[in-house]
């Protein structure tokens, strides 16, 4: 039977190192299967988060051969197996142990986003074309791979000023929701740090749900903010109309 060499990061906040394991290869095997094999046969305390093993829950994010991916969705036969497969925890969030990182920051900032707020006499008629745009964003499984790969979080660690792509699609979903009544443009500009994004599209590339994060969420949000705050014509018009934004 063919054997795969896995090099898995073992360690915690005090440091660590790669450890090499040999795992027998089965047809269709994914990286998470190999991790499970290691747990059951070599190191029972190898820490990894996972739940559904069907790419629906977004728990098992890691960096496989340096690429941010879901371990449950990455088939070993799609990787070059003539050299060891490396599995590291996501880099943007602090390590807890082995492949498990502290992603609580995401939950904290998510709670700061002003929630869905419908009108008191909310109507119930919505057409498919009205909901489709938001449905794309609601496919998000919160794997935080987009947060991991975003250089503003990853390289510049702007966590105090910038919410990251996951939160922008959350805000886009609320802003474009046919029944929502709030305006989150000021929040986007001043608190969520939308201006930091320079649309390199790295987030879109790693999204396992194939959500067009940059094109369909971030760019339209940037346009809305720009129209309101930075368009001189709009500024003049609003001045005469007495818009609340002025």
């Amino acid at each position, binding site marked *: 039977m063919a054997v795969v060499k896995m090099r898995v990061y073992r360690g*915690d906040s005090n440091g660590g190192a790669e450890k090499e394991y040999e795992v027998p290869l*089965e*047809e*269709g*095997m*994914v990286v998470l*299967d190999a991790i499970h094999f290691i*747990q*059951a*046969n070599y*190191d*029972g*305390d*190898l*820490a*990894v*988060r*996972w*739940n*559904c*093993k*069907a*790419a*629906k*829950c*977004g*728990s098992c994010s890691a960096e496989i051969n340096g690429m941010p991916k879901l371990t449950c*969705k990455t*088939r070993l036969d799609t990787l070059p197996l003539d050299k060891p497969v490396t599995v590291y925890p996501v880099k943007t969030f602090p390590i*807890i*142990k*082995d492949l*498990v990182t502290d*992603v*609580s920051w995401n*939950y904290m900032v*998510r*709670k700061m986003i002003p*929630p*869905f707020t*419908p009108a008191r006499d*909310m109507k*119930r*008629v*919505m*057409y*498919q074309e*009205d*909901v489709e745009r*938001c*449905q794309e964003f*609601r*496919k998000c*499984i*919160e794997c935080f791979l987009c947060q991991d790969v975003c250089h503003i979080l990853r390289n510049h660690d702007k966590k105090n000023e910038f919410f990251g792509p996951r939160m922008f699609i959350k805000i886009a979903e*609320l802003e474009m*929701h046919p*029944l*929502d009544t709030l305006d989150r443009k000021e929040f986007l500009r001043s608190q969520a740090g939308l201006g930091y994004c320079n649309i390199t599209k790295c987030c879109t590339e790693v999204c396992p749900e194939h959500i067009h994060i940059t094109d369909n969420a971030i760019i339209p949000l940037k346009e809305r903010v720009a129209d309101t705050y930075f368009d001189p014509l709009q500024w003049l018009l609003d001045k005469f109309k007495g818009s609340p934004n002025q």
Partner: protein
Amino acid sequence: MEKYETHTHDVIVIGAGGAGLRAAIEASAEGASVGLVCKSLLGKAHTVMAEGGVAAALANVDTKDDWKVHFHDTMHGGKMLNNWRMAELHAQEAPDRVKELEHWGALFDRTKDGKIMQRAFGGHTWKRLAHVGDRTGLEMIRTLQDKGIHSGMDVYMECTITHLIKDGERISGAFGYWRESGRFVLFKTKAVIIATGGIGKAYKVTSNSWEYTGDGQALAYEAGADLIDMEFVQFHPTGMVWPPSVRGILVTEAVRGEGGLLTNRNGERFMEKYDPERMELSTRDVVARSIYTEVMEGRGSPHGGAYLDISHRGAEYVKKKLPSMYHQFMEFAEIDITKEPMEVFPTTHYMMGGVRVDADTAGSTVPGLFAAGEAAGGMHGANRLGGNSLSDLLVFGRRAGLGAAQYANELRDNTLKIDDVELEKAAHEMTRPFENAEGENPYTVHQALQDAMGAYIGVFRTKEKISDGIEEIQVLKDRASQLRIEGSRMFNPGWHLCKDLKSMLIVSEAIARCALQREESRGAHSRVDFPKYDNEKWGNVNSVISKDNGAMKLGTSPLPQMPEELRKIVEGGHK
């Protein structure tokens, strides 16, 4: 005893899937201080994997539908073993619970005239399942999560409850550990709601996530509550077969709801033999047995399954209505379901049985202990209809939240006591695997349990097989009492498995004992040696499991009597 953290609440909800979140939202709305405790990160619970839809008689597509037909279908699907009051409340309240989700931001697929779209599903007379493509569970859990985090509750993520603590007969606390650090934590509380889901991980081939280890059923059993109907384990007819890595992963019933056809290796639509009227949209128990029989009699596909084909609906339609199925097969099996058929075989999916509860309040037989969702028993009888679990979560999650908050409010000040000796015992039970100089690897024992449950207490059962299974479970219990763990308590999955294994062994024994007792075939429980219904002896009783002097006690209790007007609905013409 080592230092531990303490938190105090009126209501502790264990489990943050649909039922737990809905319960926590309701209890918070009632003014209770709520702690929501979950083994995983918030939003990762098994509800996320529900695909096909939530059943509610909204009558948006088939205008003749109403709660009575839904009630009728649910009772027939459950082979009349359902708790009638639960089935009644469920059918009556599901439409409001679905509309409420929309009020909280959910975006279901729409009909042409702008209403919530509904699709056909097995055993449902009318098109009844509100859905979002084939990711309805994700939509539900996100909506509840968004609502929940702004409802004032405290969420304790990655925390496992290992023991319930009582003051006399009443619940007074829940004890457990943080998965991250391994440190212990005590929640002082007046009421506990069990919303921990199912038991699928006791079986090898299952659609369930790792969390489904029967924790809630085991905690309730240990605390003295009754479990009912534990023999009724639903094998979903269509799990993936190939490759081995994905064996058991769910193929949504929506494939059949959208017109998918089942055939054997000879190209025969075999459901003609088993249920010519409803064909592919027969109930899950029937379709699972049919596929199983076809394969066992040598008419299976190359990897030992049946073919399920949806390609005739056209690529655009399939990708639109079943997007995650399309990706699931493309990425895991390299099969394009818009062009070729899938291979499917039954997979362990759902526990119909669970904690015995009062239909109206979700209260168990232990004061202060409540249960909702899959962890509770009674609602689905001997077989659950697809789509009825998501509606169950909403209806009885809300009722459990109400019931627990009212109970807690009536107690006023929390004067309940926590017994330190009991805590110390609980803590020591948890740390023992580190002290054992010799002992077994928990993963090995878990695999042996999964093999035994599949082999002895699977789709078709006999007295001999189940008895062998019970014997094997006793051996495994001994082995599980001598486990040994490497490493520290910090995020140690091997250690976590020790406790999960204890829960799985309790529910496995309960399943086996109930399965041996019920000498008939009904719904998901198929006895080869008793292939027919025995209405006289078994048609009016639930199996009951309880803890008696440290041992598992097995018995029966009569079904609650259905009022005459409901009986008429069940027996009468339902259209």
